[in-house]
Each structure stands twice: as C-alpha cells, then as structure tokens.
C-alpha cells in the first residue's frame, strides 16, 4: 500500500486521557498532513470521550528496535528483580505513580 503514490502518509496517534497523564499510543491512521491527522484522530479515536489531548507523529519518524535483538536487549533484565521497586508500599489512594 505504501507504494501507492495516492496513498496518504501514515501517522501514529497518541491520546492523553486526562490532564497530567502521559499520552498513550492508541493506533495509527492516514492523513494528508499533521493538521488533518489531528482532525482524523479526533474522529477515529476520541468518539467515546477517550481523551482531551492528541499528538500525531509521522510513522516514518519513529525508529524502532529490532525484534531479533530482543534476547540481547531485554533478557539480561530477567534475573535482576532487585531493580523492581517492590519493597515500597503504595500510599493509600494513590492511583497514578
């Protein structure tokens, strides 16, 4: 599809569900430019009050790690449980930490 010259560029969409929270990746869509990508994201991804802020990023601006490197990149963390902050108690009522 990406070889089709009439096809619009792909954008990755990030939605912030609530003020103060981070923007989360929700999916992607096609749009002619950044402004229209935001408009389209509004229609595609915020129809059910999912958020109050939208970011769009050209999909080709994202550099990704290689799946095949997974072993080397991530497996060494397997046996280092001391890196997990499991010795702390969550304050009561704290939802977002």
């Amino acid at each position: 599809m990406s070889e089709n010259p009439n096809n619009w560029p792909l954008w990755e969409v990030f939605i912030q569900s609530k003020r103060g929270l981070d923007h989360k990746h929700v999916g992607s869509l096609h749009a002619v430019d950044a402004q229209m990508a935001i408009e389209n994201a509004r229609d595609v991804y915020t129809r059910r009050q999912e958020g109050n802020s939208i970011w769009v990023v050209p999909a080709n601006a994202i550099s990704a790690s290689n799946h095949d490197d997974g072993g080397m990149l991530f497996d060494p963390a397997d046996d280092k449980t001391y890196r997990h902050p499991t010795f702390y108690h969550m304050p009561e009522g704290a939802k977002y930490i």
Partner: protein
Amino acid sequence: MISGLDRTGRKFPAPTMELKEALLTYALRRGDDNLILSNRLGEWCGHGPQLEEDIALTNRALDLIGQARNYLQYAAEVEGKGRSEDDLAYLRNERQFVNTKLVEQLNGDYAQTICRSFLYDAWHLPLQQALTKSTDERIAAIAGKAVKEVSYHLRTSSEWMIRFGDGTEESHQRAQTALDALWTYTGDLFVQDEVDAILEKAGIAPDLALIKVAFDKTVDTVLAEATLKRPADGFMATGGRQGKHSEYLGFMLAEMQYLQRAHPGATW
C-alpha cells in the same frame, strides 16, 4: 412553546397563533436543513475516499441528525397535534420540506461534497451562535449544544477547501467547479420572510443579514487562503423555505421514507 405548565410547574402564557405558527415553521426549517444534509453525508458511508474520511463524514452526519431530532421534536411539540419527530421526517411530502436548497444538492465528487458542507457550515455556525441568545429557552439550549459540533464542522470543511484549492491543479479545478456550481444556492440561505420577521421581533431568531456578514467574512478568508475565486452573485436559486425544491430532493425522500410508507408504523 406550548401554553400550559413548563417542567418546573411555572405557568407561561399561550403565544399568539401567529407566533406559534412562525415558531413551528422555524423549527421545521432548522430540522430539515440538518436532516437532509445528514442524509447526503450518510450516503458516503462505506464509500469515503479514505477510511478516515468515511468515519469523519459519518460522524458529522450523526451530529447533524442529532440536531435535526432536537428541532423536529420541538416542532412536533409546538404543533401540538400528536405528531412525532419521526412522523415529521418520514411522512411529509417533498413540498412540505422547508430545507434550504443547498443541502439537497447531490454529493458529486468529494470537492462538491466538501464545498456544500463548507458553504452550509459558514452560514450554520453564526446562525447557531446567534440562536444561543434566543429568548426561546428551548432553541437557545439546542443551539448551545450545536455550536460546539458546528464549530468543528466548519473547521474541518475549511481545512479541506484550503487543501483542495491550494493543492494540485486538479484539486484546485474540482474545488472551483464545485464552488461555481453551488454558489447559486447560497442565496436561499439568506431569504427572509414573515416567519423570520415575527421571530426576530420576539427576540427568538436573528436577522439573517447579520449572519450574512459573518458568512461573507468566513468565505472570503478561507477562499483567499485556498486561492479560490469567489463567484459573482448572479441568479440565486431560492424557494426551499417555501417547499420549492430542486429535482433531487424527491428521490432522496423516496429512499429515506420508503420503509415507513410501505409499512406504516413499522418499528424495530
């Protein structure tokens, strides 16, 4: 407004017959505009040029049908003859529809669909904004809700006009062709008659001459950025408010009303 008690139990006076009739017609006009344009936009469902546009168009169609329902419900209540919003939508004939001629025009290519929406939105937004100050509380409430939706409609149709006009040679040509073809229907948006005069006097509806000022400003600003040429005001095809329509409305109603006509009272 119907004479009697409102929801809080306060008594309010019976409007004169004249005002009541004018209000009924006014609510029908507002409802019909939105109902017919909503249907036209809905025709794109599953046929949009791009998945995202398909969703965006039908989203706007849904906004418009919501607004149509609000106005037709109100019309039915004002009429007070036991008809429902559905009766008004499905059981009136072509000559009883009082929508503006612009909204019934065919979808054509995407430039024509967008251009029709743009011209409508540029008129619809200032109208709904003015109606938020209506002395009729119900209309003010309907308009208050509609304004946010319509603001978005105008922004998105304007953005497309700019991209078409200032895009490729072909998109520019198509947008200009659509604009030239639809311009003759813009006059119908500003036709005023006794209904408008009565309601303006009562503070219920604005003078459309004021809406024209806002319309002109929006159209000129967007067309300048789109490098499109505003057509000269020539012959204006009017008459929609009196139920005189172009050849296209009847076909749409035939399809839209078929089920209720063939199976009266059918529900599901």
